[in-house]
Each structure stands twice: as structure tokens, then as C-alpha cells.
């Protein structure tokens, strides 16, 4: 299998990689700081900036009144002002932007601002929002078959309720932007964003200027995970507004507390399920109602809600499905994209439904899971027919390769002999659709220059944020052109080189941009082969390039890559190419909620083993053993890292990461001392990942499937493994589906009567 280290490794480990906060700034740079709402909902009666404005070193305090264009940053729906005008809708909503000579002056100024807010009722939960009819948009419903009729024919029917909490992205690098004035009112923004075009478009809208006046450049991100898809935008726009007025560079890097307080997170979901099975344990009908806590504005919530429905039946075939989702408007910061994008929340519900059914029937969950796994040509509730399905393949491979029976025997005997510790095992299959579910977003471009010395520069719309997409882009260029890695450089992501891009999201970045790089390189190659054929007096069909040398019918010729490029220059051959790729086949009709939205699905199965300390309620994850469908991985080292990292995030979401707001809408888990993400000791003791051997999928770049999001959902298995351990200690425990399963909930469960 192919592998190649992240091309940034060398500078990363030496601390030489540049992030926004590390670039050298101009001497006349000013520093920004947001003044945000200290209440979750209310009418702004008065804001007194006078004391702050008088502070020495404060240059200007910007508010909605300073917006020359539209005070509107909403992406999907125009429902979010850059700065609050008359009302505030969440605690942490930006009201003003202080620009000062130093960051420390800006901080002092912020403390001098006095605000008077007439408080209005605060909604913090989706359930309350629904009961009050507070929604972002109309609900969506997916239908397959007829659940009403099907339930009449079920042998068993179970109903229940679930909750999965939000999740803070906790990218190690906080949000930030550095804005620099250019000529003629143009502005360059160096932003830590997953969506350079979104930043460009919204900035132009707010500033009331043409998009070509705004250049967005992204070097790399210190983690994104969805948190910088839409929500990197406001900070960039604010710095741009300030630059437009002051004609001096403005830098704003959020401190951690401000970032935690002001930005949205993974959506909490309250859900209800009804599952019907027959005697053979086949799931005949499934209904679910999802209440998504969207927060105070749409952000990406409608799209996230949609993906919840796409993944509501996970990797199972259910002939009769009815699922509905409500994006509930509350007074939390607008919740946003987070790795999985609503999919994990959907999967948690059906896995809970299966657990409830299994518990009632007195059997292990796996018996229900196994007989319902997707097969070739099964239909998803949204009309797509499953093909090249690997659900059963990964499931049975995992059972066999990791000797599930042996594991289960060992666990049973451990539980029999141990009074203080109990182990639990679970299986977690996944099927995750790849593509932006909004078909129009599935396109990308690449610009490839071959310089006259033979070196190559590649620009794409892909943003490097640790997923090593630049490494994969380099591999594509290298493979198609037949040259060594050292000849290829990946440029920053810049809106002037590659325009109108989709954000780096939906696990699709490598597929979309990689295909564009491939197309561009293929066109260059075609021209170069023509030049080579002329030089060597051979047919084009026998010419190939490999390892910087030109081959004729698989034999090395005397012609080198550099000589070929020199000759091409002399012959005035174009050595630059811009290519466009749009995913074929996919479509989706929202009016009937049917179509073929995904290029393909990624499959896999994880076995999770946990040990619960039944005296203290704490637990460890002994092992997670995975068979994963990478297609034909183009970089197994990188892809394994994506699996492990996503898994750890999924486990964090299911175990210790607990977002907490009080009833006034104030974030309580507002620092790293109160919001805990996994550390090295809470990671599973072992993670074994076996790549499933398949032919790969042609819709994926070099047949190497998308890998960013799917493995996060293996983490859901941890919830049920812990639950099984609790069950074996406390026979009176009544199953609850309320994630995360914190040590608190575990201890309460161990001793409930």
C-alpha cells in the first residue's frame, strides 16, 4: 500500500509552520477585539462606548452603523447580522469591534463599555423551542414504504427517547484573521478558514464592494473540524470593515475563552424513535423525530439537519422509514458544522433503538444489527440504491479477524470473576455518504504551473487543516506527471488563483480537488507527450513519464523531465493548466426528498471493549478494533491517522465532552478547565485498524475513498460498550440514551435501583 508522510511534517515538528498568528505583521498593524452580548436574549436599550473610546490607544469602535453594505453574514438563510442592531439572540453575540494600538488596550477598552439590555425569555433546549413553535425553517421528512401499515405487522415495537449533547470543536488554533489594505480599496485577508470563498463573498457583501476587491489567502489551519467552515467568517469580515475605514492592517486572533463563548458547536439533538421488528429480528419499520438545537441563527443547520435524515438508518436496510427533523431556534450561539455534520446524531438514535429492542428481548444488540445490514441494491430512505456495499463485508471481517467470539468469552469470564470491574463489548457498523448533499457544491478547480526549470506549483481550493489534503494533492500531481515529490510544491489556498470554491468539508476535499488536479495534470501530460514524441521521433502512444525520465515503450530514453520542459518552452507550449471537476451522476430533488445525493458510501465496523470501575464510575477503553473500507488507499499512513483521530473525537463526544449552558444561556463549560477533550490517557489502549481489501471506487480520487468524517462514528460504539458493562454490574439499570456517558452518569447508572 502507498504511503507518504505529511509534506508539512518537517516544518511542523520544528515549529516552523506558519499559522495566521505567526506571520510577520506590518508595523502599523492595529488589533481588534469583539465586544459581545452579556445576555442570551434581549433588547439593547443602550450601549455607552464613551469611556472606552476615550482610552488612549483606542482607534475606533465599530458597530452595525459602520457597515457600508449589508449587515448580514448568513450563509444558507439571511438571518444573522455581523453585529447586533436592536436585539441580541445569544450570549456571546458580537455587538461591536474595538480596534486599538495593542491587544491589551483593546481588552481594557472592552471592560469600559457599558450596556443596558432589556431581557427577553431565553430558550436553551430544542424541546422547549419546539413547544413554543420556534424554528429556523420548515421541518423535513423522508419517507420510504409505509411505516403506519408496517407497524401493524411487527412482532415487536419499541419506543424511546434519546439525547446527544453538543461538542466543542476545540481546534488547537483559535479563530483569527489578519487583514491588510491593498491598492484602490482592495483588501487581503489571511484567514484561518475552511471556506475562503465564503469569507470573500460575505466580506464583499458587508463592505458593499465587488468580490474581486477581496483576496483571501489561507496558509493552513491549526485544526478546523467544521468549526471554521462558516464561523471563521465573522472575524475576517470585522477586520475587513476596520481596514476599509482605517486603511491600516488589522489583526484579530480570538482568545480561547472568547472563542468558546462566541462560536457554535456540534448540535445537541433530542430525538424520539419507534422501531418495529419481526420474529427474525428484521427491522420492518423505523420512525424517528429529530429535534435539532440550531441555536440563534441558521448557519449550516438546515444542511446538517438534512444529513441527519440521510444517516438515520446508518448501515441497515429498513423497508419502511419515516424520519422528520426540526431545526429548532434557541438562544445558544448558532450551532454549526462538526465532523459528521448531523450524521452521528442520526446514527446514535437508531443504535439506541436497536439497544432498546435488544434489551427488551434479552439479547445482544449485535443479533439485530447483523441481520439488518445493508446489501447490494438495497434502497436508502432517500431513494439512492446502494451499490458496491461493504457493510456485511466489514462486519464479518471484523468478527473473524479480531476473533469476536474469543473476546466475548474473555469478557464474560472477566465479569464473572471480577467484583469491582466490569467489561463491556459493542459492535458499531457505519455507512456514510460522500458528497456535499447540496449537489451544486460538488465541484472544484486546480491550477497547475510547470515552471521552466521543471518544478511544479499546484493551487487548489482545498484548505490544509491537518487532514494532509495537500500531501494527497501532491501525490496526484506526482503520479500523473511521473515526477518526483520534490518537484511539486503546494501553494497556499488563495481566491485569486482558484475562485468560487466550495469549503473544505464533507470529507470531499481530496476527491473534488484531487480530481481537478488529475484533470489539469492529464492535459499537461498530453501536451508534453506530444513534445517528447517529436523529440524522440516516436509515436505518442508509446511515450510515458516516470521518475523524472521519459520512457519509450517502458524503456528509459535519454530525455529527462527538465530537458522536455525546456524544449516545450522553446516550442511555446502552454505549461500551465486550469481544470474544473464536477462530480457526475449525483442529484437530489428536495421537493420529493428523493434522488442519488452521494457519489458513494464509506463502510466499516468497529468492535469496542471497555472496562468500567464499578466502585468509582470511571472507565477505560481497552481497545477499538476496526475493519475500515478505504477503497484503495492512496496514503495509508495518513488515512490511518484520520481514522484514529476521528475515532478519538467520536469517543470524546460520547464520553467526557460535556457542553453545559445554564438556563440563562450562559456557557458554563467555558474554558479548558471545564471542557475536557481526550488526553493521551483517555485514548483507547489500543486501536487496531485493518483496511478492507476492495477494488476501490472510481468516484474516489485514485480509487481512494474519503476518510475524514466516517470513522468518527465508530466512537458511538463506546457508549454501548460502557452501557453493556454497566448492565453486567447492575441488573436494575434501565437503559438510557443520554450522551455523553460521563463518569457521573456511569456511577449513577451503576447504583440506580
Amino acid at each position, binding site marked *: 500500500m502507498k504511503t507518504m508522510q505529511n509534506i508539512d511534517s518537517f516544518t511542523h515538528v520544528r515549529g516552523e509552520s506558519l499559522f495566521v498568528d505567526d506571520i510577520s505583521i506590518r508595523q502599523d498593524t492595529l488589533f481588534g477585539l469583539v465586544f459581545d452580548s452579556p445576555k442570551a436574549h434581549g433588547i439593547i436599550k443602550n450601549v455607552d462606548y464613551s469611556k472606552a473610546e476615550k482610552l488612549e490607544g483606542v482607534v475606533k469602535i465599530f458597530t452595525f452603523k459602520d457597515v457600508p453594505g449589508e449587515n448580514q453574514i448568513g450563509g444558507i438563510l439571511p438571518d444573522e447580522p455581523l453585529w447586533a442592531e436592536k436585539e441580541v439572540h445569544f450570549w456571546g453575540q458580537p455587538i461591536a469591534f474595538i480596534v486599538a494600538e495593542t491587544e491589551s488596550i483593546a481588552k481594557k477598552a472592552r471592560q469600559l463599555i457599558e450596556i443596558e439590555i432589556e431581557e427577553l425569555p431565553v430558550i436553551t433546549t430544542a424541546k422547549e423551542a419546539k413547544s413554543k413553535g420556534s424554528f429556523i425553517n420548515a421541518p423535513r421528512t423522508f419517507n420510504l414504504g409505509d411505516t403506519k401499515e408496517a407497524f401493524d405487522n411487527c412482532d415487536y415495537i419499541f419506543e424511546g427517547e434519546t439525547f446527544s449533547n453538543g461538542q466543542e470543536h476545540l481546534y488547537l488554533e483559535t479563530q483569527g484573521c489578519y487583514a491588510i489594505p491593498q491598492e484602490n480599496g482592495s483588501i487581503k485577508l489571511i484567514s484561518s478558514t475552511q471556506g475562503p470563498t465564503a469569507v470573500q463573498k460575505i466580506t464583499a457583501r458587508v463592505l458593499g464592494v465587488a468580490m474581486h476587491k477581496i483576496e483571501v489567502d489561507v496558509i493552513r489551519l491549526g*485544526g478546523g473540524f467544521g468549526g471554521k467552515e462558516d464561523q471563521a467568517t465573522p472575524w475576517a469580515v470585522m477586520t475587513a470593515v476596520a481596514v476599509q475605514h482605517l486603511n491600516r492592517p488589522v489583526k484579530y486572533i480570538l482568545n480561547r475563552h472568547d472563542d468558546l463563548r462566541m462560536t457554535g458547536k456540534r448540535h445537541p439533538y433530542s430525538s424520539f424513535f419507534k422501531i418495529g421488528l419481526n420474529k427474525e429480528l428484521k427491522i420492518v419499520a423505523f420512525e424517528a423525530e429529530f429535534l435539532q438545537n440550531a441555536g440563534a441563527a441558521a448557519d449550516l443547520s438546515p444542511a446538517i439537519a438534512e444529513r441527519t435524515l440521510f444517516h438515520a438508518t446508518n448501515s441497515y436496510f429498513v423497508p419502511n422509514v419515516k424520519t422528520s427533523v426540526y431545526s429548532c431556534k434557541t438562544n445558544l450561539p448558532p450551532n454549526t458544522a462538526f465532523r459528521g455534520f448531523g450524521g452521528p446524531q442520526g446514527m446514535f438514535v437508531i443504535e439506541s433503538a436497536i439497544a432498546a429492542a435488544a434489551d427488551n428481548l434479552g439479547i445482544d444488540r449485535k443479533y439485530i444489527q447483523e441481520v439488518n445490514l445493508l446489501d447490494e441494491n438495497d434502497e436508502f430512505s432517500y431513494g439512492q440504491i446502494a451499490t458496491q456495499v461493504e457493510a456485511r463485508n466489514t462486519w464479518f471481517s471484523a468478527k473473524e479477524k479480531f476473533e469476536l467470539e474469543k473476546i466475548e468469552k474473555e469478557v464474560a469470564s472477566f465479569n464473572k470473576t471480577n467484583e469491582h470491574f466490569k467489561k463491556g463489548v459493542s459492535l458499531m457498523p457505519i455507512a456514510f455518504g460522500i458528497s456535499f448533499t447540496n449537489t451544486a457544491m460538488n465541484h472544484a478547480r486546480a491550477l497547475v504551473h510547470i515552471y521552466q526549470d521543471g518544478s511544479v506549483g499546484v493551487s487548489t481550493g482545498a484548505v490544509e487543516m491537518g487532514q494532509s489534503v495537500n500531501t494527497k494533492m501532491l501525490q496526484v500531481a506526482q503520479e500523473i506527471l511521473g515526477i518526483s515529490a520534490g518537484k511539486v510544491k503546494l501553494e497556499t489556498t488563495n481566491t485569486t488563483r482558484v475562485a468560487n470554491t466550495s469549503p473544505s468539508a464533507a470529507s470531499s476535499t481530496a476527491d473534488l480537488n484531487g480530481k481537478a488536479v488529475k484533470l489539469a495534470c492529464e492535459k499537461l501530460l498530453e501536451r508534453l507527450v506530444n513534445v517528447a514524441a517529436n523529440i524522440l521521433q516516436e509515436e505518442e502512444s508509446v511515450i510515458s513519464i516516470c521518475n523524472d525520465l521519459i520512457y519509450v515503450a517502458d524503456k528509459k530514453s535519454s530525455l529527462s523531465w527538465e530537458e522536455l520542459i525546456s524544449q516545450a518552452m522553446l516550442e511555446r507550449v502552454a505549461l500551465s493548466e486550469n481544470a474544473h471537476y464536477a462530480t457526475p451522476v449525483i442529484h437530489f430533488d428536495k421537493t420529493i426528498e428523493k434522488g442519488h445525493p452521494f457519489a458513494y458510501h464509506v463502510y466499516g465496523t468497529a468492535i469496542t471493549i471497555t472496562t468500567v470501575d464499578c466502585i468509582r464510575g470511571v472507565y477505560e477503553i481497552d481497545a477499538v478494533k476496526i475493519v475500515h473500507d478505504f477503497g484503495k488507499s492512496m496514503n495509508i499512513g495518513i488515512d490511518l491517522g484520520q481514522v484514529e483521530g476521528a475515532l*478519538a473525537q467520536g469517543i470524546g463526544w460520547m464520553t467526557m465532552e460535556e457542553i453545559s449552558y445554564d438556563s440563562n444561556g450562559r456557557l458554563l463549560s467555558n474554558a479548558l478547565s471545564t471542557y475536557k477533550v481526550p488526553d493521551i490517557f483517555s485514548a483507547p489502549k489500543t486501536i487496531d485498524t485493518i483496511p478492507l481489501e476492495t477494488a476501490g471506487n472510481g468516484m474516489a480520487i485514485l480509487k481512494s475513498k474519503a476518510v475524514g468524517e466516517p470513522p468518527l462514528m465508530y466512537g458511538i460504539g463506546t457508549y454501548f460498550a460502557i452501557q453493556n458493562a454497566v448492565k453486567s454490574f447492575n441488573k436494575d439499570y434501565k437503559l438510557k440514551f443520554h450522551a455523553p456517558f460521563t463518569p457521573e452518569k456511569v456511577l449513577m447508572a451503576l447504583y440506580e435501583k
Partner: protein
Amino acid sequence: MIEFIFNNKEIKTAVPAGVTLLDFIREDQRLKGTKIGCREGDCGACTVLIGSLKNGQVSYQSITSCIAPLGNVRGKHVVTIEGINLPKELTVVQQAMTNNYATQCGFCTPGFVVSMTGYALEDKASTLNSCNDAISGNICRCTGYKSIEKAGFEIEEKLTEKDDSDHIKWLIDQGFVPNYFESIPERLKTLASSITDVPKNNEKSVLVANGTDLYVRHADTLAEQKIHLVTHNSDLNGIDISNSICTIGANTTVTDLIEHKEFRSVFPKLDDFLKLVSSEQIRNMGTLAGNFVNASPIGDMSIFFLALNSVLTIQNDQGTERTIPFQDFHQDYKKYDLQQNEIVRSISFNILKNSEKYNFEKVCKRTHLDIASVNTAIRISVENTHIKSAYIGMGGVAAIPKCLSKTSTYLIGKKVNSQTVKEAAVILQSEISPISDVRGTADYKRLLAQQLFYAHFIALFPLNVKLQNMMT
């Protein structure tokens, strides 16, 4: 002026002592490899190494530079990622990280590399058992840690060949650190002899030890205030065990306790207990007195010493000392018995007798680098199967670190068995008054208090006390 060695360069700076070391590195020195992740010591992205002269050798410890006052590096060797880099090649640690795909977005990476290099620089006396221990304060959001752990194994294996006779030279030869490290001991000695102006206390200045608590909350104001660094006061250092009494100076860090040979012999399970306290970086900084005067109801070290029936020595600015039982020090939430002109000087306790046992328990959302939901310690002596004395401290169950005196009194004279413990747990519930907060609901803390109380006895008297018997 503050004088120290910064990487390979002697520095004499007029930057105020209260500015964080992190800001000095990034803003004054313009070295950007040390990253800003949280500014509260909870992520490790800003980790640097601090080298101090000890018996003619330089001993290195990792710290989080975001909550460290610059003034504390006077006379030390400060090493950032730039000071670890070799001119062209990667160091062994960097290569191991690269080999194992242990860097993804790269933002946390320099901090990990620094911590792991610190592990390599530890001398034989180190109590770090593994590379994982060295990165207990480093958070990575991308990798899931397994690749970093593998890099650690690679480093550990390489270090098994280490030549302890001149370990710095060996590390240089093997490519762990650059050549200049060899010159540091001499340069620090020269520096020590030239430093004369150790600042005196000024009445208007704020007392700061290593800053792990104050800088989390007040870094901005401390940067501009006059601060007095008590770490310069060597009277407050040291651990002394004589005449069966252990006396520990106020400046003693948790790491000092862990590394103290005699202290370790008093508590055979010390490593297990104290590695539940924060992270390697913070243990290298956080002082006992700092933990006591922070007065958090869940301060780990307060609970640790409360159960030892310790005595606190307090000193005023005239040098006059007074002693109080430690259990009387904390009076109400964040209120304690210390006047404006007083400082905590030391804490002492009678060494455990053979009949005495000690145990420490702590549960939080994340086992390491987290603040407890409930923590507790017990010191108990049993003679002829009967309890002779008992001291129990418990945190997270009252406004102050709680001394469970009623529960202790109840235990005395009773037989050690499940029945006794179960009955005592009822008294315990009457003594505590936990509140619901971000660390858990009151109901949970009550249950957890009971369970950890049971855990003490199950750990110390496994033959006499059984969980099952207490559950029925």
C-alpha cells in the same frame, strides 16, 4: 533586569517580571514556534523547558509558558522549540514524530516535541515512567494520540542505550539536542555569579510563586503590576524529614515531592496518587502553598495534607512565625487564616507509623489533567483489628477542603469491616453539603463521596471490607 539564557543566547531584559514567558517569547523575541492554545496551562501548546543548575548539572523541566511569569526564569536556561532544532536535520524526537505520522495540523506539535525532548533530558533520578507521562499536559485534537504514543516508544527504546556518565554529551551525539547544550552548565554558573540584583519585596507588590493559579485568572493585570516572586526566597524551599516529622517548604512543587527519595518512601503509592494531580508541566510549577491559598474546595494538595493531620507554619513580614492545624486554615469559601503581612512558610506532619495507612482517591471527568468532582485522602491506623485513629479529608463536598471529623470520630474504636464502613458513610453524608455545578450534581457528589470513602477501605483493607457487603 532579568538575566537568563534563552536557547543559545544570554539575555538581559527590562521586560517586566510579571509578563508571561509566552509573550516574551512570541512578542519580544518574535519566535513563533511556541503556540498559544488556551493561556491557562491546559493544552501544552506553549510548553518550554526550564534548565536549572543542580549539583553542577543542569536539570530540565517542562512548563507551560502561558502561565509562567518571566521573572521566574532569572538565572535559568529557557529552551523553546527553536532551541531544540538542529541546523538542518531533525532531532531524534522530531524524526520519531515524523516517522509515525504523529503530526497532523501541526499546531500542538512543537509543544509535544518540547515535552518529549524534556523526557529525553531527564536524568537517572527522574520519576517519569514513560514518554506518555511527559506529555500528560499536551492536548492534540487531530491524531487520537496513538501515533504520538508510538513515537514515544521509539524514543524510549533509543534512550535505553543512554550513557548516564555524561548524558548530555550522549544526547548531543545521538542528535536529541544541539551542541550548545554542552556549554550550558558553565554558562549558567557564570550567570549565577553575575546576578546580584535579586528583587526585594515591595509592600505594594503582588505575591506570586509559580503562577499556575494567578496567571490563569489575572495574566493581563499581572503583566503590568509589580509582582514579588516568592520563588526567589530560598527559605521557603526544601523537604526535611527528621525526628519523625516531615516539614515541607511552601515553594515545594508537586514534582519536588514525587522526586524526593525519602518522601517517596513514606508513601509507597505516591506516584499513583500524585499523577492524578494536574499534568507534568503543572506539577513542575504548582507549589503547595499556592494550592493552599488558592483555597479551592477541591484543591488536591489541600486534601492530601488535610488527611495527614498537618500543621501549617505561617510567617509575618517581621519574621515571626505561628503554627495552626491545617484543618483550621480554610475558614469559608476562599477565606483562610492569613493576614496581609503573612505568608505560608511550610507544612509539616508526623511520619506515618507502621500501623498507619494512607490512601488518596480522585475522580473527575477526565482522569488526568482535570479538576476533581470529589477527591479524598485518609490516614488511618489499626491495631488488633480495631481502628485507633483516622483523619479524612474530602474535596468538592463543602465550601472548603473538608476535614471529615465526625466520620473520623465515629470510626475510632470500631472494628474494620464492611458494616463499620457502611455505618460511617451515613455519618459522612451528614457532614457534607455538596452543590451542583459544572463538576457534577449534588446527588452525584454525594454518591461519589460514599464510593470513594468505600474505595479507601477496599484499597487498604481488602480482606476485611467488601464492596458487595456494603451495597446490601
